[in-house]
């Protein structure tokens, strides 16, 4: 389609006269076409200063958001692919079975007067009831050097379990911390690189695990980490291993192997995983 065609559409969109479906298509085009985008920005800057256009644009913005939300629901429904649909079909049976097992066991990570969270928890472990959250892991990042000496802020990039992949730069320090731990536990953090190598992240003193005291507030685990020179840019699968007893290097290896094969974890060990995308 010609540039003229798109320019006409851009004018209509900014004037608020383009149907929402067409505007959505136009926005996809603008993501990739610099010429049209420059034109959009040129007209858009003027339109922002014209009250009649700007007010209409604000209403369109609201409609656009609703449209995007509805598209997202249609395009990305909570339907797994055909290959993974069987867990959904099995869910009721598994639920009944899990409940029976949970009731029959005495579990070590019981909730002791704390609040029980019923969110999407991704824990799996031998003795950890699926409904409780023994720990929450927080990942913060901070720029090593601020641009032009400006104060750099600490940003929360992930909260596990729950958040999706997190992006972090090699130009940043990474700080891991935890909260909502109900019982005193031992903690080990390792990173799996794309080539299969394992990078020991915490503790940094070479011992296999560090002891964490039960707290509800956010508490740092060790010092902040500098990933530069230790891990290459790319995906880094972070595995947080939490256990009620101190574990050795052998159990850490077993846990990683169990995670890779999706098999049963060593006794009294729980695992929390998340994906860090390391950028330059």
């Amino acid at each position: 389609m010609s540039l003229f065609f798109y320019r006409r559409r851009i004018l209509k969109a900014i004037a608020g006269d383009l149907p929402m479906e067409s505007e959505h298509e136009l926005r996809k085009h603008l993501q990739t076409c610099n010429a049209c985008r420059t034109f959009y920005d040129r007209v858009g800057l003027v339109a922002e200063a014209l009250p009649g256009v700007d007010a209409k644009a604000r209403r369109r913005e609201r409609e656009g958001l609703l449209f995007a939300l509805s598209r997202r629901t249609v395009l990305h429904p909570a339907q797994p692919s055909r290959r993974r649909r069987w867990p959904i079909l099995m869910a009721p049976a598994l639920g009944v079975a899990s409940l029976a097992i949970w009731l029959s066991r005495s579990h070590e990570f019981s909730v002791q007067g704390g609040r029980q969270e019923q969110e999407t928890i991704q824990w799996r472990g031998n003795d950890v009831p699926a409904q409780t959250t023994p720990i929450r892991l927080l990942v913060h990042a901070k720029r090593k050097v601020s641009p032009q000496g400006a104060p750099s802020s600490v940003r929360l990039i992930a909260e596990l379990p729950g958040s999706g992949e997190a992006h972090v730069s090699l130009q940043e320090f990474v700080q891991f911390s935890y909260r909502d731990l109900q019982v005193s536990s031992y903690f080990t953090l390792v990173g799996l690189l794309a080539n299969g190598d394992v990078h020991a992240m915490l503790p940094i003193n070479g011992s296999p695990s560090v002891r964490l005291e039960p707290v509800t507030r956010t508490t740092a685990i060790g010092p902040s980490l500098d990933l530069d020179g230790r891990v290459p840019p790319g995906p880094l699968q972070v595995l947080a291993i939490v256990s009620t007893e101190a574990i050795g290097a052998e159990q850490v290896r077993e846990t990683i192997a169990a995670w890779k094969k999706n098999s049963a974890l060593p006794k009294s060990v729980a695992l929390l995983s998340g994906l860090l995308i390391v950028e330059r």
Partner: protein
Amino acid sequence: MNAAVPPGTIESFRRGDEAAFLAVYDAYNGELRSMVRRMFLSPFDREEAVQESWLQIHRVRLRFDPERGPLGGWLQTIAINRCKEILRARGRRPQARDSTDDLDLTSNESAPDEAVRSGRVQFAMATFLHKLKPEEARVFQLSLLEEQSHDQVASAMGISSRRCKYLRMKLLLRAASDTGLAAALAEVTKP
């Protein structure tokens, strides 16, 4: 962020109720937009960033805990992080002057040189209107400056609604192509 939403709205918002989400959107979008404006120069980028921020807010709404702090601050943090992610994805960081740490979102005070700018805009606008035909000048005034609908403008001027739409588009393009007006307006809209 000082906007307030009706009692009970926050719980419905967390549950995913659309009306509550829109109530939150209506209450906070203005402040969120003005914050996003300071991070993006291009109108297209701003619009995308605002929408992306709200989509992200909708996705993670369950994580908001009213006991830990006000909704406004939580929304602001998500929007800032989303904007930074967008900027980072493009391979560049926000410049020092884009730092959001010291944003005063409550201040409505005008910049000292605003009067000068507004005078420049008025002059550029008058010059631009002078170049238009009487019909075009009237459509510009009613539709682009006074926020009247196509039908209202059409009935006020005795023209068809279709012609009004056409003129509105044409005038928008002419205004953007008019160097003097575009420069004066851009000065006002620049973050």
